C-alpha cells in the first residue's frame, strides 16, 4: 500500500518512491512524518498518476480516510506520536537542510506562490521534487476554488519550462531507500521520474485549460504522449523526446509574449482595473 501512503502524496514534498529525506513532512497537517509509508489521510493526491486518475483515487481515498488527521493505513486509526510529530523541537533536525526548511515553512512567511518561486530557484533534485509536488497541489487547489482558472498555474509552468531541458542530477545522497538495482539504474529511474513529473504538472495545467480556447489545452496529453512515444523506461529516450517534441509543443502552446501578457493580466492591480 506504499502508493496510497504519504510517501506518494504531493503534500509530502520531501519524498518520492526512492528520492528524498528519510522522514517526510506534510504541509497540510504541518507534521513531520516519521513513517510516511505507513500513514495517509483524506487529502491524498498521488504524485505518479495523470490528474484524472489521481482525482479518482483521491475520491476513493477520501471516502475511507479523514482529511482532518493523519491515519495509519492498515488500521485506519489516528496516527499517534510514534508516527508523526508537530513538536517544534523535532523540526530542528531540518534546520541545516535548505529544502526541508523551505518545505516546512511553505506558505508561512508569505504566499504559497512565493514559497514555490523560492523552491523553483534552488538547485538540486530534492528542491525540484518539492517544487513539482507542491506546485501540482497548488494548481489543483486554485482551480477547484470558485473562481479558479488554469492561469493560476501560469508561473509554475513557466518555471518548469525554464528547467525542462536541464537534466536532473541525482546525487547518491538523494536516494533514500536501499534497492537491489545497480546504482546507475536507480539514478536513471529517478531521473526518468523527475522528468516525467515535470510533464505531468504541465499536463495538469493543460487539463485545467481544456474548457478554454487557449492553446495550452493542447498540453493535457503531454505526459501520456511522451510515454506512448518513448515506449521504454529510459531517461535518455524520454529526455530526447522532451528536447525534440515536448519543449516545442510547450513553446507553441505558450510563447513568451503570451506568457508575459497573461502574467500582466494575472497581476493587474484591482485598483487599476477600476480606473
Amino acid at each position, binding site marked *: 500500500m506504499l502508493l496510497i501512503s504519504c510517501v506518494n502524496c504531493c503534500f509530502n514534498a520531501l519524498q518520492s518512491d526512492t528520492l528524498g529525506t528519510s522522514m517526510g513532512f506534510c504541509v497540510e497537517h504541518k507534521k513531520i512524518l516519521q513513517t510516511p509509508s505507513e500513514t495517509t489521510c483524506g487529502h491524498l493526491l498521488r504524485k505518479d498518476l495523470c490528474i484524472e486518475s489521481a482525482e479518482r483515487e483521491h475520491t476513493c481515498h477520501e471516502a475511507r480516510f479523514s482529511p482532518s488527521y493523519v491515519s495509519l493505513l492498515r488500521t485506519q486509526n489516528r496516527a499517534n506520536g510514534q508516527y508523526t510529530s508537530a513538536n517544534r523541537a523535532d523540526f530542528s533536525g531540518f534546520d541545516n537542510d535548505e529544502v526541508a526548511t523551505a518545505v516546512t515553512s511553505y506558505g508561512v512567511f508569505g504566499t504559497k506562490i512565493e514559497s514555490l518561486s523560492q523552491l523553483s530557484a534552488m538547485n538540486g533534485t530534492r528542491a525540484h521534487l518539492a517544487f513539482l509536488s507542491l506546485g501540482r497541489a497548488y494548481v489543483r487547489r486554485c482551480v477547484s476554488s470558485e473562481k479558479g482558472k488554469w492561469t493560476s498555474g501560469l508561473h509554475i509552468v513557466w518555471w518548469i519550462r525554464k528547467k525542462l531541458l536541464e537534466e536532473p542530477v541525482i546525487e547518491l545522497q538523494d536516494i533514500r531507500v536501499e534497492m537491489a*538495482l545497480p546504482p546507475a539504474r536507480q539514478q536513471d529511474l529517478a531521473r526518468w521520474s523527475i522528468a516525467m513529473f515535470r510533464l505531468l504538472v504541465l499536463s495538469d495545467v493543460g487539463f485545467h485549460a481544456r474548457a478554454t480556447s487557449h492553446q495550452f489545452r493542447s498540453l493535457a496529453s503531454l505526459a501520456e504522449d511522451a510515454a506512448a512515444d518513448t515506449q521504454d523506461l529510459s531517461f535518455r529516450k524520454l529526455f530526447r523526446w522532451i528536447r525534440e517534441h515536448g519543449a516545442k509543443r510547450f513553446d507553441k502552446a505558450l510563447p513568451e509574449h503570451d506568457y508575459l501578457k497573461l502574467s500582466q493580466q494575472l497581476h493587474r492591480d484591482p485598483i487599476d482595473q477600476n480606473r
Partner: protein
Amino acid sequence: MAISTKTTWRQNRDPLWRGDAAPALTHPTPTANKSLVRHILYLDGAGRSSPYHSTSEEQAVAQRFAGRDGRIYSTSARKVRDAGVAHISRIQLLGLLKGKGKGDGKWHNALEVMQARKYVELWQEHLLDYSGIAAARIDAILAVLFG
C-alpha cells in the same frame, strides 16, 4: 545499449518475499479485476479486491511493505506452481508492461503502464495469480504457500 538490471534471483532456489499485516495475509479474490496495472498501481483504493498477491525477490522490499507492525512472509516459485497458482515473474511482467500493455497488462494510458513497469523494476516484483482458484480453496492454499 540495454540497461542492465539485477538478474541473480534464481527461480528454483530463491524465495519470494511478501510484506503484509501480521495477523493474516491479505485475502486474494479470484474473481476480481485482472488488470495488472490496476493491481500494481494500487488503484481503486485501500481494501480493494485483487486476484493477485505481490511478492518480491528482495526481503528488504517486503520489509518496507510490512512496515513496523507487519510481518514478512515467504514462499517459493516451486510451492506456487505445485499449489496450482500461476506465477507471473518479474521478467514476464516487464514484457507485458510496454507501450499500452499486453494481455492483462493492457491499459488505456501508456504513462500508467510505464509507472507500473517502474515499480516492478524497483520492487523486483513477481505476482501470484489466484484467478483460476475456487474461492473455497484459498485459505488452504495460502497455508501451504506461506505456512
